[in-house]
């Protein structure tokens, strides 16, 4: 067996699982799972608790945050209700996810979350990001209409540090592709 530890399909653990080595979960764990090696959840596996490991492959169901030091892969039968954090995240078509996704690989922290007020679908995250989103709103309301440009610059100043952190690679790549296409068009 490739995995050092296996939680069988009929197994139910109410408590925590932690330690070294790789772990395959085919049954049910009601508690946190944290290992230094890889974690694989079979299609019928259920984890109610946080999952952390090096490379986590989810074919089953997780109700809790998933944090990986290498990668999180959610296969088509996988379902996650919780936040995902890993340097690399893969998701198959059919996978169900409800929570925030971060691919910077930094361990979950509130300061990092506050700096990324990106659109999210989780209720809990909406609460966290609300102060950041709400902050610029009272300024234009307090200032008179002529000061709108000042308020706008204030907004930009407030928005800049917020946007500093996640420059999504696809956005940078898109103009390059366009530039190449334009060059090709000019050659023709």
């Amino acid at each position, binding site marked *: 067996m490739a995995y*050092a*530890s296996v939680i069988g399909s*009929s197994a139910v653990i*109410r408590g925590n*699982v*932690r*330690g*070294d080595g790789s772990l395959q979960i085919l049954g049910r764990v009601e508690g946190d799972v944290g*290992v230094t090696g890889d974690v694989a959840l079979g299609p019928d596996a259920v984890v109610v608790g946080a999952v952390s490991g090096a490379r986590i492959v989810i074919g089953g169901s997780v109700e809790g945050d998933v944090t990986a030091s290498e990668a999180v892969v959610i296969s088509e039968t996988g379902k996650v209700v919780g936040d995902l954090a890993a340097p690399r995240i893969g998701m198959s078509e059919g996978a169900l996810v409800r929570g925030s996704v971060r691919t910077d690989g930094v361990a979950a922290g509130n300061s990092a979350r506050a700096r990324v007020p990106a659109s999210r679908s989780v209720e809990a995250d909406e609460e966290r990001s609300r102060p950041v989103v709400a902050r610029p709103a009272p300024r234009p309301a307090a200032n008179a209409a002529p000061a709108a440009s000042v308020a706008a610059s204030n907004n930009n100043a407030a928005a800049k540090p917020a946007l500093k952190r996640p420059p999504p690679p696809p956005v940078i790549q898109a103009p390059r592709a366009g530039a190449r296409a334009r060059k090709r068009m000019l050659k023709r």
Partner: protein
Amino acid sequence: MAGSVVGAGLIVEGEFTTDEDVVIEGTLRGTLTSAEAVSIGGDGVVEADLRALSVVIAGQVTGNVSASSRVDIQAGGRLIGDVKAGRLTIADGASFRGNVDMDV
């Protein structure tokens, strides 16, 4: 093929219930209930009450052991706790401290 394996280095804390075989080479704390055989390997450490069809102990167990079939304490195995089982074997070189109830 064992249903569940708690490998070396893994620590399970809590209530472990299964209908399949269990092999413990790591650490288990809490309770373990299995409808099949439970085997505690040479490096296995169990601080839990065990309830299973049969139990083979080659590692260390602290807790009460109840087996509907049999309990085998192998050489090098160590059990501190009471045993309730139909059959019990204690190999030469095994350590055991506790009461035995064999349904007589």
